């Protein structure tokens, strides 16, 4: 079972992702802050990380850099507001796998996650 980590300070986003992904056979874990997410990543490996870029405690880019620097091989998908395409591009260049704009539909999350896992498995 593929493990997926959601890092977002918004409970509704976390819940939405959990409720979308869990029925499709993914093991979903949630973290309400960047620090909490990083701590979870150290404890166990995840296939995909859904990372919100706008959080009060830690900037999404910072979290992304820390994940890249760690031993984790998880694919990071950035969740961003539409207008932050600029930061999304920066994130992609910093090693993020993909990005999803808010608000998203369950299909978008599922296809993005599936794409990432397929890519991971190919390697």
């Amino acid at each position: 079972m593929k493990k997926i980590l959601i890092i977002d300070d918004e409970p509704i986003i976390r819940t939405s992702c959990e409720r979308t992904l869990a029925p499709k056979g993914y093991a979903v874990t949630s973290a309400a802050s960047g620090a909490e997410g990083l701590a979870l990543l150290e404890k166990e490996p995840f296939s995909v990380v859904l990372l919100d870029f706008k959080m009060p405690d830690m900037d999404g880019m910072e979290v992304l850099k820390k994940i890249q620097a760690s031993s984790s091989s998880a694919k990071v998908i950035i969740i961003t507001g539409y207008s932050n395409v600029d930061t999304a591009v920066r994130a992609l260049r910093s090693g993020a796998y993909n990005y999803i704009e808010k608000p998203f539909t369950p299909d978008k999350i599922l296809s993005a996650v599936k794409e990432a896992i397929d890519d991971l498995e190919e390697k």
Partner: protein
Amino acid sequence: MNKIFGNPDRSLVAKLIIAIGVLMVIVSFIFWYAILQKQQQDIRSIAVKYGDSFLAFIKQSTHYSMLTLDSAKTQEAVEHLSSPDVIKEVNIYDHGGTIHFSSNEERISSTVVKTSLACTACHEDPEKSSALLNERMRWNVTKDPQGVSSLSLVSVIENEKDCYTARCHVHPQDQKIIGFIKADFSLGLLDVALHKQKEALSLYVAIFVIIVSLFVGFIIYTMITRPIRVLIAGMERIAGGDLDHSVPITSDDEMGVLARSFNAMIKDLKEARDQREKWTQTLEEEVARKTEEIRKTHASLVQTEKLASLGRMAAGVAHEINNPLTGVITFAHLLRDRFPDKSQEVDDLNVIIEQSERCSKIISNLLTFARATPSEKGSCDINEVLSRTVFMLKNQEKFHHIKFDVDMDEAQFIVFGDASQFQQIFLNMFINAADAMEKRGKITVASRRVKEKGKDFVEIEFSDEGCGIKEEDMSKLFEPFFTTKPIGKGTGLGLSVSHGIVKHFGGTLKVESTVGKGTSFFVRLPLSETHQ
């Protein structure tokens, strides 16, 4: 007459006439006086001549009676020859001054005083008998208390052969002067004639002065005063603002030249005034036009700024709305999956999903044009911003069927500004192009260096193969809220905000379009001077 002379203080003619009149009076008086003097002199010399003849006649008349010592006869002749009206008195003296015969019998035997004409006619000093005058003043003119002048004339009776050879032997031969005869003639009649002549002459002179003065005055009036008055009237009209007036030219003399020059001057003045009025009007129009331009620019700036701050506020709100909207969409989807297809519940949930997605689109449009991120100014590599934007858009669903034809100059185009704002402009250009082509076709992007007014610019071209822009929409293209997109698709802010940003950084935004063929937008941004 008043018209001619006017006020002597102010009238040139009056002054001239007075001056000429005074001169003529003085000259005429001198002539008048000279003529009268000469006439008097002539009359007197004639009178003296007649007087001399008369004295010679007396001498002859009494010659015989003298030689015969017939005193009674001599006295009778003297009395007989004098007449009270003309010859007032006739006296015959001996050389000693004693009167021997007189028309006035009372005076016989009296002796004349030595200062009287009888003595002074011959003697310079009557006391010295030898002191004789070279020119004998034998006559003089006196006036009696009634103002009647009279001529006194003296004639010497010389010793002749008949006298010293006469039997009486009264006079020895060596005596040269026997005596003398003196007569007083009244010049009353001549006085009257002279006076009448004086009066006539005075009258003639006065008439002459008046006629000459009037004639000169009239000449001056017609030749100088009248044309000058016409000129003055013309000047007054012109001073009053009537530049259409001109002075009639009546002669070829200096006055005519003056009138002609005056008319020429007025013509020039009128032309200058017309020119000035034209300038003033042009200036006023120019000022009004500029004022209107400034007002419009200001209004549009205010509008843009208002919209920008409104947008910033809306963007902040929109970001927050995205989160609950994600929840609504997700749970609507999850709920829909639980109902069988084509059920009423699925239809209802589809409405919720559609409307939520519509909300999402509205928010995304709003966020595109009013970014919440603060402006960060610095040096931006335009080619880099452009390729980044293209790279990002290629992944977007909207651009899946659009081909990008990128032709960027290899040079680095460094522009001072905010990269995210430039990206916003480029994004907007691409979105408009995609909308115009209904998401299908080719977008040409090119960057190049151009020169404008001696400054270097980078020009970025965005060309599409879309529907083009109608002529009537061209002027409204950059107005806020102007959009040709369907309701809910466009905010009408894209080009307005883009234009504002380009202008803010000293650039220009131009558009060329052909309906049915496509549209090209040209963004020009000034190159940073250190990187030119």
